């Protein structure tokens, strides 16, 4: 059973639109939720992360919205740019545990 689920599997938006990537998790002991992005032929790298002490984390055009009761979170990318085209992985762990990754959402932003 997947501990971390992502949807959609792929997403296409036009430049300037807001892309919304969804994530849900099973384990209520998870309390650290990073998003990694991976460009074609490159390695994953940390984009932004949140802990459940807050329900929102913002970094420029990237915002995580977190709903602890429903065990859901989402990554919003406002004013999407072609350079944002990548695969986005949601992950989760306990404070000192190992990360469990979702299967990823492939985002394509067209100019």
């Amino acid at each position, binding site marked *: 059973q997947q501990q971390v689920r992502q949807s959609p599997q792929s997403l296409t938006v036009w430049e300037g639109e807001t892309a919304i990537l969804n994530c849900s998790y099973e384990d209520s002991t998870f309390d650290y939720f990073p998003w990694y992005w991976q460009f074609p032929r*490159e390695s994953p790298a940390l984009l932004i992360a949140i802990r459940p002490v807050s329900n929102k984390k913002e970094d420029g055009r990237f915002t995580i919205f977190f709903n602890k009761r429903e065990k859901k979170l989402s990554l919003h990318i406002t004013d999407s740019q072609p350079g944002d085209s990548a695969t986005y992985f949601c992950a989760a762990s306990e404070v000192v545990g190992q990360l469990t990754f979702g*299967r990823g959402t492939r985002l394509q932003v067209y100019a």
Partner: protein
Amino acid sequence: GGIITQTPKFLIGQEGQKLTLKCQQNFNHDTMYWYRQDSGKGLRLIYYSITENDLQKGDLSEGYDASREKKSSFSLTVTSAQKNEMAVFLCASRPDWGARGQNTLYFGAGTRLSVL
């Protein structure tokens, strides 16, 4: 800053062959990881190690061995390559407990495996 170096970048093997992938990091991190990435399946943990000579199995450890003989290096062995197998193996390390960014994984460039 530091770097994680994986060798080789590309690995072509034969069915049933034992194949070894190597990883070196100069971050001086205690914890190192091996992940397997298949298209559409995300990153799955094979083995990790929290210190020299420590080994911990991940969800995908069957068919693999690992070795952490020194802090800076972590190797992974595919014990018997499967025909038509294609995957990317990613090595990663993490800052130590209490350090800034302690839960951030830093990845190497990967080893791309193809089995004929």
